[in-house]
């Protein structure tokens, strides 16, 4: 699982993240950085033994004006595997273009 996360990180840093462009040169937001962590929800007030692993991701994004925000979210393991699969497909397409 950690190996998958690390591969994802390398994929994104190499292929998808770009150095900040000049203001106004991109029409979408730009991904500047991606950070991840893996956690395990152990226990909660409604369930003593949750034992639920998750992957949390924070994206550092610059908008068209250059303003930087962080977007973060969590994924269950199946969701993360789907997320990772999408990036692998993107990387494969980029290779062939």
């Amino acid at each position, binding site marked *: 699982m950690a190996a998958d996360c690390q591969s994802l990180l390398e994929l994104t840093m190499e*292929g*998808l993240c770009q150095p900040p*462009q*000049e203001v106004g*040169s991109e029409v*979408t937001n730009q*991904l500047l950085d991606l950070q991840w962590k893996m956690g395990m*929800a152990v226990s*909660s007030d*409604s*369930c*003593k*033994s*949750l034992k*639920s692993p*998750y992957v*949390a991701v924070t994206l550092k994004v610059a908008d068209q004006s250059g303003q930087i925000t962080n*977007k*973060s*979210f*969590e*994924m269950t393991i199946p*969701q993360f595997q*789907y*997320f990772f699969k*999408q990036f692998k497909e*993107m990387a494969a*397409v*980029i290779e062939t*273009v």
Partner: protein
Amino acid sequence: MAGELEGSKPLSGLLSGLAQSTFHGHTGITEELLRSQLYSEVPPEEFRPFLEKMRGLLKSIAYADMDFNQLEAFLTAQTKKQGGITADQAAVISKFWKSHKTKIKESLINQSRWENSLKTMNWRVDLKSQSKHLDQINVPVAIVELELGKSGQIGI
């Protein structure tokens, strides 16, 4: 009237309704709805403590994520308590937990996720053909759309 509450047939339906509102976030299932649908002969002031007792039992079982041995021991102890449950009721609760345990656990996990989750993800790859900056021509760019949102929280 008390005889009605001790019956086990409507209890199964009651437990389903309780699970829907307590674990799965269904907001429309009120005490009055359950009473009128399942225990219409029982007056509200008698029904309320009964409902709360059942809700408490379900929550305890879910909190401890009981396996079948623990469940049997727990329910047996409840039948021996003053103001506890009958053996018939214990059997209904046991059957209910066995078939709904997994789904309830999933809902509890969902309820504990308070950050944004990934709702949808779309992507495409573009090849720039024209740009203000010549060095960007023929550079493939992946564009990703992520929809983030809160899920699984009850009543907030």
